[in-house]
């Protein structure tokens, strides 16, 4: 017993000291959309209900445990069930209460929440398409000021922080290179799909979580009522990078959103212009290294050694060292370019994610870096031609 006492005291002290240090979150994050607010209300209400049930039932049990015990000389009754009419009626009372709780007290608000949650279309002012990739998100604006803007959002936490070689930043694992920017006070319909496995796009402060399923469209909606930066994560197991594909949304005013959209369009035009320009090998290698580290190194590793057998090495690989174009000038099946454009098996197709310059650059880098030295150069214009 002495040991138990010590253990209790120890645990108690540990818990209280931790409580004093930490900024715990005991409930959902502050809701910023109508759906999240509704969810919070429903959740709080239900929690109160189940806690009351728990405390009432527990009190009855504890009373019984302390009263009806042999050590106090209590003699057991022989009752095996309600026998008189009034007893039978009394046993129906908790049943009735539970029916009321299930289907009225909880059932009705829960149904209203479903209707609110599923109403993605009424008064929707803009549409954003979200595509899940292993392990990044792609965002595409389908209409309005930002129509045509399309970009990929990658985790931007450096690998050194994950490997404990550098101190962890404030937004460790919840930071990305390109954030989704949405205007406040506008109902945004979000279409979800995936290019490989099932993902789930989740921002706790929005109260919306929906699977992104390959080959199908699913939808949800947000109407953010407060400007700010909101962070979330993929929450459907999607492979080794599941813990490393955060969602970061910047909610900004309408005016800022318009400015941002204009800025993005200018940048996009510049990038597209780059596809027609003639690049030098060194420029491509430098650019390619950037692209490689962002998109490819998770699986093929920064040094190109891969993680065999699932993720093959690029160093000395047949594909990365083989010819790209055949005698007819078209790219060969199973060539380096084919694999990157179209993917195969676990390797995703990159043609919808990376632009011509990125693809050309990363191919040149992989063929002339990572221990390979093929020596050839692939121009963005060739990639552009190959897409047609």
């Amino acid at each position, binding site marked *: 017993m002495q040991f138990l006492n010590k253990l209790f005291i120890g645990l108690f002290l540990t818990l209280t000291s931790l409580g004093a240090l930490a900024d715990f979150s005991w409930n959902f994050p502050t809701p910023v959309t109508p759906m999240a607010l509704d969810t919070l209300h429903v959740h709080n209400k239900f929690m109160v209900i189940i806690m009351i049930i728990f405390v009432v039932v527990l009190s009855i049990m504890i009373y019984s445990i302390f009263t009806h015990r042999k050590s106090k000389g209590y003699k057991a009754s022989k009752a095996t069930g309600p026998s008189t009419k009034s007893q039978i009626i009394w046993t129906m009372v908790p049943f009735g209460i539970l029916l009321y709780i299930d289907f009225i007290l909880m059932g009705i608000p*829960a149904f209203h929440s479903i209707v609110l949650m599923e109403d993605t279309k009424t008064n929707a002012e803009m549409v954003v398409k979200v595509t899940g990739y292993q392990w990044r998100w792609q965002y595409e604006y389908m209409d309005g000021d930002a129509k045509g803007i399309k970009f990929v959002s990658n985790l931007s936490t450096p690998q050194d922080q994950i490997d404990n070689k550098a101190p962890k930043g404030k937004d460790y694992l919840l930071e990305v290179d390109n954030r989704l920017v949405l205007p406040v006070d506008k109902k945004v319909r979000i279409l979800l799909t995936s290019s490989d496995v099932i993902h789930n796009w989740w921002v706790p402060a929005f109260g919306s979580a929906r*699977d992104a399923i390959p080959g199908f469209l699913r939808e949800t909606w947000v109407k953010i009522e407060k400007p700010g930066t909101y962070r979330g994560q993929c929450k459907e197991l999607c*492979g080794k990078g599941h813990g490393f594909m955060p969602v970061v949304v910047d909610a900004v005013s309408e005016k800022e959103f318009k400015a941002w959209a204009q800025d993005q369009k200018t940048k996009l035009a510049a990038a597209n212009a780059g596809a027609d320009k003639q690049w030098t090998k060194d420029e491509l290698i430098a650019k390619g290294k950037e692209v490689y580290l962002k998109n490819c190194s998770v699986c093929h590793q920064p040094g190109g050694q891969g993680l065999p057998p699932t993720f093959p090495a690029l160093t000395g690989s047949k594909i990365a060292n083989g010819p790209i174009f055949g005698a007819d000038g078209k790219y060969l099946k199973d060539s380096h370019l084919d694999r990157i454009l179209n993917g195969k098996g676990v390797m995703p197709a990159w043609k919808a994610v990376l632009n011509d310059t990125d693809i050309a650059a990363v191919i040149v880098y992989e063929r002339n870096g990572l221990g390979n030295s093929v020596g050839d150069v692939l121009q963005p214009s060739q990639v552009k031609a190959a897409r047609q």
Partner: protein
Amino acid sequence: MSTKAAVHHDDHHDHPKGMKHWFTTTNHKDIGSMYLIFSLIMFFIGGLMILAVRAELFQPGLQLMQPEFYNQLIGNHALIMIFGALMPAATGFANWMIPLQIGAPDMALPRINNWGFWLLPPAALLLILPFILALFGVGDGAAGAGWTFYTPLSIQGGIGVDFAIFAIHTLGISSILGSINVIVTIFNMRAPGMTLMKMPIFAWAWLVTAFLLVATLPVLAGAVTMILTDRHFGTHFFDAAGGGDPILYQHLFWFFAHPEVYIVLLPIWGFMPDILQTFSRKPVFGYKAQVYSLIAIGVLALVVWAHHFFTAGMPIPALAYFMYATMSISLPLAVLFFCWIANLWKGSMTFETPMLFAIGWIIIFGVGGLTGLVLADVAADAQYHHSYFVVAHFHYTFFAGGMMGIMAGVYYWLPKMTGYMFSEKLGKLHFWLTAISFNLTFIPQFFLGLAGMPRRIPDYALQFSEFNAISTVAAFVLGLSQLIFAYNIIKCMRGGKKATGQVWEGARGLEWTLSSPPPYHSFTKQPTIK
């Protein structure tokens, strides 16, 4: 059969000795013991896996393992705990106790019984082998797609997935054989006078369980076979590009896996009234109500599966149906809770180890049940789903409701099985350590889930650090406390204070009329029930 012949018959076979005895035995008690020991071993293997996971989650950052290996551990922890520890323990009890409780000499199909058990070790080996092969550079380890094997992730996986599919097939055959045996035994081997409505609740609960297994396991076997052909033979059951549907798999899987929850829990709900009546010295309360509730839960279990994937997207009527159907389960379950507590009420209670576990089980499992009720709500489920809230919820049902229930059963029947009393002192220490460290492990996980931590991630954002640290420390205490359990069992098997036939002062039922341990063929003279 004359009494003389019966006495002569008993214990006079030429039983093979040593290992050969255990390979060839058709005795329900031998096989029951093997199931229980197998379950205990798997419990420790699955536990070691999850302690490695908790150690990784002690601090943010990757310290001990890479994400691939982490994913393999979490999925196989679940498979081993559910198929290796929980289900075999329940089958072990069924083997031991159903013949004793209904007054039969043995199970109806003894050879099938033997085969049913001996399929388990190879299946467990199939699950664990990929880990070992990977050490020698063959394959990339075990299946890393969670225990749910959601497509297309499971179609991408390495050879571990194929191993797991064959393991599931083997485990499924074993479970179906066990179920058929239970059904046949209960319908044909009851002692004269033991009508179905006089049968102990444990036998009733197992009957419902057995029907659920026979109804749903073939669906799982079919679903994983479809994964296998999608992986290797070019079919497109779950591939949208070929006209398939990844969500079809989730429907098939949960059509099995939701009833699976009740398959694991029903046998425990079955023997709990026995424990409660023994230590409250008051007969089972509401026998008929309990039996009808068990049947109702069995039926409802088959029609609520889609609440496991509300966030996959469904039309409103489907969402509403699955929500209300799920909430309906709370009604028969509440009847059961009501009866259990009424069984304690005005009893004359003593608090031996099995009773402590039973009472702790009612309280902690109650938390699992109540959180299940809120999880049924579709809108809130969008937040809870796939977060640590769900992890905490199903450990309240599977560890507290499942494992702690099984521990109550083990302590209750151990003296009957071995003929010796276990150490009460160690048993009580085991209970308190388990109950407290369990809650300290999983209460923080409720808060982690609400704050937005997804499950199945190997590394997490900084705001989740403190709760994870508490959870990990408590998990290690929980894991280590189980060594007391194992020690107590082994000690009890080896000897100690002799147990009487009745063992517990208030014990009722046929199994307590026999000596401890019972004779090799249990009832050589059929008892008559009045």
